[in-house]
């Protein structure tokens, strides 16, 4: 072989190698420069994925940490029939493929048994089908015929985790699932009107769920990464990751057991009297913390869709009633506070009219005829004429000012919203008789919570507080991020006046009082009965009443304020007075609360009045 021939061959080889390199280079230029955008788009569609990580909604707890609302995962089970086909097609061995198919069929039969479905229905769901899409979207299988593989056939919704675990253990090919969080309320209807609920779309509708949505909701996160051919995430290709932030927990001041006691009592009231509505509120006077707030009618939070809208209202704040005789604490408290009268001051309550500012005014009727009564007796006997004379003694403006101080005519600042202001007109808009009627709780309207908080002010040394229904907000790790402390709204009367009035209210359950027999020995019940005629078609009805019993105990060391209000009780003899329809429930609830909250009876040596020391604030 000549040397020149060998050189030629080497040159040819070198050119060939260079040409190959050049071809590779050109292809690379096409891939990376010319077709870059198109190819990147394809990769993006085929491999890139953004997975949203849903934040867990915070829980709602009672003051003792019992769960009132939480989120439970539920699984939606579906079938990707094409995944099964592809799995079987991977195996080229005919015999082995058939064995695999038989094995999968047996598993599907087990799946049917777990789901309580027929095998035929399951097999139908596993039949691969094509679905129609817009041709512009049909780019996945290479042909733009408007048909793509249907990879999602829903089998069952709302599966719980244990059931799903059993299904997952079967390892059925082609099964796919989606996990969602559904709100659940472990206590059913307990405190339903306070907690509120989330509807099917996950929108908070009422109560704490709605008003604390900002805290409860949390923030969803997301992960940008790539997936493999089997749609599994390739974690090494995660490019961006924003972690989800779980929602905060909301701790209510409600005590589940207290709430349960109130709701059981309401159930009894409903069974006995079938009222239009009824509500019971229990709170701590020194902090304004609501321990329980129950309304009738109510509903089951887990079946909210079946509850009528009327049952979903929190009557304690959404409805107004005339307070009736419970409003007499305003006139009595104001007169005592200004030093116009003492408990022993006497008034003639037998008169039928009185001269006020140069005009003779007709005084309201009494339930029983009275003669001369002291202020203490006006309170204990609930004298309408006595209360009117007390108000006249101080004048319309002063009386109105005190009523406002008690919180009437303004919202209480209830944290769950839905509250109405009530009606309290200024003296300029009063008619001639209002000064005689308002002191007995007519010509004024208030929510049950307003009346409750007014009584609570007496129990708290004259300090009117904002009702607290939220105790604190905790983050997902249990750290307290916000605490709600007692909030004073006004000093209604002097602490000494409050203590004096508390003693007078204790007389209501005494032998001469309107609620004789409803005291609990050793616990000094201080309360006021109330019976108001309802206004039907613009007139006071003689058959429809609102009966109430509002009070606190022990009178000299108030620990619990309790209100029972029954609207339009159906009583056979028509005597639906506060004493008959509300006082027995008050006593029954108080007896249970004394035991549950371990309230000590008042000892002779501890009769130093907390109210006299000015209460907590």
């Amino acid at each position, binding site marked *: 072989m000549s040397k020149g021939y060998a050189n030629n061959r080497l040159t040819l080889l070198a050119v060939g190698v260079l040409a190959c390199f050049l071809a590779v280079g050109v292809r690379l230029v096409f891939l990376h420069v010319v077709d870059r955008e198109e190819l990147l788009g394809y990769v993006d569609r085929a491999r890139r994925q953004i997975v949203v990580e849903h934040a*867990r909604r915070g829980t709602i707890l009672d003051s003792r940490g*019992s*769960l009132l609302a*939480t*989120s*439970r*995962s539920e699984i939606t089970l579906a079938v990707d029939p094409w995944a099964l086909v592809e799995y079987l097609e991977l195996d080229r061995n005919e015999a082995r493929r058939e064995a695999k198919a038989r094995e999968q069929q047996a598993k599907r039969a087990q799946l049917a048994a777990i789901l309580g479905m027929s095998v035929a229905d399951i097999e139908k769901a596993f039949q691969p089908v094509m679905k129609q899409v817009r041709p512009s979207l049909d780019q996945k299988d290479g042909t733009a015929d408007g048909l793509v593989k249907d990879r999602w056939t829903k089998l069952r919704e709302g599966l*719980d*985790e244990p059931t799903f675990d059993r299904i997952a253990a079967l390892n059925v090919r082609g099964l796919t699932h989606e996990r969602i969080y559904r709100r*659940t309320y*472990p*206590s*059913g209807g*307990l405190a339903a009107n306070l907690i509120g609920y989330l509807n099917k779309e996950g929108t908070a509708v009422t109560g704490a769920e709605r008003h604390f949505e900002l805290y409860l909701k949390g923030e969803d996160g997301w992960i940008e990464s790539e997936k493999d051919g089997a749609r599994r*995430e*390739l*974690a*090494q290709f*995660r490019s961006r990751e924003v972690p989800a932030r779980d929602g905060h927990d909301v701790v209510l001041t409600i005590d*589940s*057991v207290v709430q*349960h006691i109130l709701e059981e009592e309401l159930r009894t009231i409903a069974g006995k009297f079938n009222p239009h509505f009824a509500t019971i509120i229990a709170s701590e006077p020194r902090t304004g913390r609501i321990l329980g707030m129950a309304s009738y009618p109510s509903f089951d939070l887990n079946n909210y869709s079946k509850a009528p809208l009327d049952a979903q209202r929190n009557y304690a704040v959404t409805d107004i009633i005339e307070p009736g005789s419970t409003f007499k604490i305003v006139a009595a408290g104001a007169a005592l506070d200004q030093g116009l009268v003492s408990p022993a001051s006497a008034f003639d309550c037998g008169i039928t009219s009185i001269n006020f500012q140069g005009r003779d005014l007709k005084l309201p009727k009494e339930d029983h005829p009275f003669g001369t009564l002291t202020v203490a007796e006006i309170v204990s006997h609930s004298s309408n004429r006595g209360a009117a004379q007390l108000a006249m003694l101080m004048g319309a403006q002063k009386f109105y000012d005190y009523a406002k101080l008690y919180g009437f005519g303004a919202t209480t600042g209830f944290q769950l919203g839905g509250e109405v202001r009530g009606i309290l007109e200024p003296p300029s808009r009063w008619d001639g008789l209002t000064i005689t009627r308002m002191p007995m709780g007519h010509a004024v309207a208030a929510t049950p919570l307003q009346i409750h908080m007014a009584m609570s002010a007496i129990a708290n040394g004259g300090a009117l507080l904002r009702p607290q229904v939220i105790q604190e907000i905790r983050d997902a790790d249990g750290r307290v991020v916000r605490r709600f402390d007692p909030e004073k709204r006004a000093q209604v009367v002097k602490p000494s006046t409050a203590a004096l009035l508390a003693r007078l209210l204790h007389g209501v359950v005494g032998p001469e009082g309107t609620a004789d027999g409803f005291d*609990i*020995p*050793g*616990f000094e019940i201080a309360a006021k009965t109330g019976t108001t005629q309802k206004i039907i078609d613009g007139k006071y009805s003689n058959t429809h009443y609102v009966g109430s019993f509002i009070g606190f105990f022990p009178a000299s060391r108030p620990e619990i304020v309790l209100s029972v209000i029954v609207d339009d009780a159906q009583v056979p003899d028509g005597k639906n007075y506060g004493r008959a329809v509300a006082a027995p429930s008050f006593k029954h609830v108080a*007896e*249970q609360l*004394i*035991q*549950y909250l371990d309230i*000590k*009876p008042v000892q002779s040596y501890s009769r130093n009045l907390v109210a006299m020391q000015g209460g907590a604030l």
Partner: protein
Amino acid sequence: MKPPPASNLINRVILLTLMLLVFTGTLGLGAVWMRQEISQTANRSRALEDRLTDAQRRLDELSAEVATAVNPRALLRQNETMRLALSTPRETQVQRVAVSAELKLVQKRNLEVFRVETASFASLNRPPEHRPLTVSLQ
């Protein structure tokens, strides 16, 4: 001086090329190994995250079940089903103790220990069955 022969130079070039190839190959293999490790670590990390999420989910599930089981109404039902006849005590059933309950119990126990009837000569040779208790008065 005589220049080195051309074959020596070629040999050096070949040697250097080989070394470069080995070095580059090692680098390449190292990069592949590193990517593999990154991939495995990422997958392990994801698996751990999934387990954590799963544990949290199961914890929530369990908490909800516990809450359902111990809510007042469910407990009352249990009370009826199991015929326990448990009920809230009434004030008349409650005996309030003004002095320290602990002190009272210790006094009662010590009274039993030092009771004359229970003492006997036979017990002198064996350790006492009861141990006297004391309590600090606060």
